[in-house]
């Protein structure tokens, strides 16, 4: 279902998002034991996230949904632990039939831009079935050009107009007309727009349940190829927020996003081993700016972008994976 194009281990930014997710879960663990949850996800052929979550938290009740029969067979072959139940089903069929019996973590990891409306409706259907302290993560394609590509005859203003009309037409009554603006229809700001769409969708789905609400926790935009947006939240009781934050310290965590601010961009530079060792040796007690000046070269044409990349790396250096070629 996901990651059909780029192998998982080469997606450095996605890997950081996954580490951030694990860190988030370990914070929630202080409030509600993650070990007692059931984990549901779209494991893909390698069931990578299942491995991490099982080894970190010891969750034993895991379920992977996979539509494609071939990927499903491969998944069965790769099954790393026998506590992972693999189900060959489409996500929509799964959500239609889903009955929540215990605390649940569910990751809806979508890829296809053409099915945005369906994905958001599945997200809504899922959260309205979830209960107190259940955790939901959703990933959607936020690469603006995959929705409406640019073409040479268009001015940038035409392009933005076309994109916003497309979103309005596709999303209909779940389009947040007050918050999503035409100037967000650029590659850089598109994740911001979809983040607001998810906010509105979540709030619409929770209408009528006045005692509980969807509390956002993190929101990241990252690109290893196509830009993706991923948002994680938890179902809380209305008066529980302060207690939850006090115990988990999520509000003090630099990666959290508890009030639907713009998603944080994960775009770490592609470092050589030498660069990485150099930068790591200056951390955690140096600013990104100092390190950039010291290095004397940029990771992007634009100084500001290069600095932003380095700042992101500084934030994530502990979570950033180490990929290296092994010669046998």
């Amino acid at each position: 279902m996901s990651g059909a194009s780029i192998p998982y281990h080469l997606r450095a930014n996605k890997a950081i998002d996954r580490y951030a997710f694990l860190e988030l879960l370990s914070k929630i663990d202080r409030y509600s034991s993650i070990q007692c949850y059931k984990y549901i996800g779209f494991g893909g052929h390698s069931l990578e996230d299942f491995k991490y979550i099982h080894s970190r938290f010891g969750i034993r009740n895991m379920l992977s949904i996979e539509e494609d029969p071939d990927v499903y067979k491969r998944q069965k072959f790769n099954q790393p632990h026998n506590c992972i139940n693999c189900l060959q089903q489409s996500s929509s069929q799964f959500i239609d039939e889903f009955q929540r019996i215990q605390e649940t973590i569910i990751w809806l990891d979508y890829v296809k831009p053409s099915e945005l409306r369906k994905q958001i409706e599945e997200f809504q259907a899922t959260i309205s079935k979830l209960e107190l302290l259940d955790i939901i993560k959703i990933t959607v394609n936020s690469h603006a050009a995959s929705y409406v590509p640019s073409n040479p005859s268009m001015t940038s203003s035409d392009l933005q107009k076309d994109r916003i009309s497309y979103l309005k037409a596709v999303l209909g009554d779940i389009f947040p007309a007050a918050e999503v603006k035409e100037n967000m229809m650029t590659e850089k700001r598109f994740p911001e727009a979809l983040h607001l769409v998810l906010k509105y969708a979540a709030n619409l789905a929770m209408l009528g349940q006045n005692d509980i609400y969807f509390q956002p926790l993190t929101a990241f935009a990252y690109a290893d190829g196509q830009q993706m947006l991923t948002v994680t939240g938890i179902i809380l009781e209305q008066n529980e927020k302060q207690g939850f934050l006090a115990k988990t310290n999520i509000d003090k965590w630099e990666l959290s996003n508890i009030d639907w601010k713009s998603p944080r961009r994960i775009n770490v530079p592609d470092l050589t081993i030498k660069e990485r060792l150099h930068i790591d040796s200056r951390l955690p007690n140096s600013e990104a700016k100092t390190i950039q000046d010291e290095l004397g070269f940029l990771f992007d044409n634009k100084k500001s972008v290069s600095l932003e990349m380095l700042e992101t790396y500084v934030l994530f250096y502990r979570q950033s994976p180490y990929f290296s070629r092994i010669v046998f």
Partner: protein
Amino acid sequence: MASENDQKSSTVKASPTKSFFVDMLTRDIELEDAILDLLDNCIDGIQRTIKNSPPSDNPYEKFWAKLTFSSESFTIEDNCGGIPRDVAQDYAFRMGRPNNNVDNDLYTIGTYGIGMKRSIFKMGRASEVISKTEKDSFKVTIYPDWLTDDMNWDLPFELIEPDLKENGTSIKITDLHPSIINAFSSPQSILHNSLVSKISHYYSYIIHKGFTVSINEVKVTPEPLKLLWDGANQIDGQNIAPYLYEMEKDGVEIKLAIGFYRPTASEEEVDDEMAGNRRTSETAGWTIVCNDRVVLYCDKTRLTGWGEEKVPSYHPQFIAISGVVYFRSPDARKLPITTTKRGIDASSDIYLYVKDFMREGLKTFTSYTNKWKGNHVEEKQRAEKAQLVAPSELFARIPDDKWTKVKNKTSKSERKYIPSLPVPEPQNGEVSKKNIRFSRPLKEIKIVADYLFEDSDREPSEVGNECFEKILREAMQ
């Protein structure tokens, strides 16, 4: 004896209580509709201001309304002319409107005189209404105590130094009810988005004609309906065009347009829709506009003729059909609207009369969709050539000789335009066609779609058609 007489001639209390108005009336209305009621008053203010101006395409230009809300208060401010002093003193604040109405010859939509008060009571317990007209400025204040005092029905009225920059009204509501504070300020509230979206649909025609509405500083953009048209140069042959109808009767001007706003749905799309994977059916159906204000939006029920007489009920197959009826009259009481101003009075004579033409228009397009069922690829290619045009423009651009007079004694101006829509070829009797139907595993369709179009998401009907075309080209060589 005396006391018996007293009893015979005594009275019972039948005077209204404030709580009747404050609690009962507000139950009938949703918060969003209460806000729209206030916006309707702005529009009525514009009608009063421009009543002597020459007709124009943008009559509402230069007029604006600004709405702001927070956990503390709700404010609506406009430059739509203000409330005349006598109107304010005589009835604007009364519960209901007396018969001698100053707006008798205006294109207003407010007729029952409960809107403003009901909206205020819906939101809070205190308010201040300030108004400035050419002549004077005044302030009316409602205090929380007044709401519980059944004896005192008067409100303090003060003439003040001009407080507003332009002629207009400012209504500020405070001491908000807890549920309203929640709707105005909770991070989980959907009000702002949903209000902007509602106003962009319901005030589309007014905004399109120049009116500016902003909500918490977000300007609302109109979403007017446009319909597919092949253009004036295609009009002599079969062409894609809307069905149009217009007439004037008893001081009510009526214009009706119905057609396609997008290519018709493919079988796959209909199946998806039936399975609950909805796409974009919100825009299908009938929209009714009274004095530029939308009172019914994209209705797909019997109320607008679906499933009546020979018209089929709404079905996703008709997803591309959309229509609009405009009613316009200086006398709001002649318009087919309900007291809430947000619904159609389906039993009114004028509406029942027009409904015949609504059904005729609907039938034209549902039949077209049925005829082309099974030829979707061809129909889509055909429809893609047409342009989206605003209905108001079509009334002007369709040549007079293409219209048909409707036989009716009441109105000379009654006429309709029935498009001659394209018909699939077999029915022309020249080439006979057959459908080819077969099913293949989805995975294989995707492989072929990716091979042919480099897009594995193409609809199966398109993939099938392209396969046939490809082989046909080879075979013909």
